[in-house]
């Protein structure tokens, strides 16, 4: 193996214990015969390996557990107080400010449709009534005119029938 490859392994798998025994032996044999790689390995261990060895695990202060426990107890209490969380959530979603627009739009449409249909229905009724009244007046007029003889029916058959 070339020195560049050896140095690659020294910086990674060799010093991190990731190599097979066979490959490890190969590198050790090279180090025994190459001063440059040997010096590189020593410098690497001094700066990047040894300072991190035998570091004590640092435990968190006791109050961290107390805070975790309190947070868990608090969220359990919240779940119990919320007897019908679904209903609360439902109302929250209705009245949530960012959803107000989405709630208002369909409401406005529904109101508009109701007014439109109601007015249309009313208008139709008025038109029908007006029509009927006009027809009634016309027939009344005809009735008066015919009986009063002022209307000339014109043809003999009409005279015969009447």
């Amino acid at each position: 193996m070339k020195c560049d490859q050896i140095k690659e392994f020294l910086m990674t798998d060799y010093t991190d214990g990731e190599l097979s025994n066979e490959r490890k032996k190969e590198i050790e044999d090279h180090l025994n015969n190459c001063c440059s790689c040997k010096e590189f390995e020593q410098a690497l261990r001094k700066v990047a390996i040894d300072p991190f060895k035998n570091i004590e695990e640092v435990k968190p202060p006791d109050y961290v557990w107390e805070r975790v426990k309190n947070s868990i107890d608090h969220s359990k209490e919240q779940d119990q107080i919320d007897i019908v969380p679904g209903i609360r959530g439902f109302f929250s979603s209705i009245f949530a400010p960012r959803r107000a627009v989405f709630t208002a739009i369909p409401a406005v449409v529904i109101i508009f449709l109701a007014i439109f249909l109601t007015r249309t229905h009313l208008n139709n009724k008025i038109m029908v009534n007006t029509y009927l009244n006009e027809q009634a007046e016309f027939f009344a007029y005809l009735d008066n005119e015919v009986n009063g003889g002022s209307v000339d029916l014109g043809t003999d058959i009409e005279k015969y029938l009447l």
Partner: protein
Amino acid sequence: MQDISKDIIIEAAKGDLESFEEIYRASSGFVYSVVLRIANNRHDAEEVTQEVFIKIYKNLKNFKFESSFKTWIYRIAVNAAINTSKKIVKGRYKRSDFDVAIQTEPGKDMTREVIERKDKEKVIASLLGMLNSDQRTCMVLRAIQGLSYKEIAEALKININTVRSRLKRAKEILLTSKRKEVIKNEM
């Protein structure tokens, strides 16, 4: 991190606080150490550790034993630590921290052991401060916590070769920095 039995995990998932406390005792050291070293701030480390365990408690019921429990905790802790460290302003890690450690005189009440430990912590913080978030995370998990490349890859959800290249780059940076220091001292 200590092993945790399946029964404890199942009980804790049902809401049993005693079982959850066992999980906390077994893994809080790992979580806190990792966060502390990646974020390099005790206050942030305490807050993040708290958040991590609350998150673990709430999501225990979703843990399906498809991966190892340790890997699952590693993942939550490391993600939280990385997110915190990315919020830290650049330049907060300063080379001068190491110089301060050398110049600071020890207090009278401190034992030699305590002084050495504190100095060592400062050296580590200084070295890790030279690395970016990704390199620092891999160095902490490998060099301090002793995770294998495979475990690191699973925790970070990255390729094993990515782990290798980040560690290589991290060590190159540390070597280069040391060489510059030696040259500076010689001048």
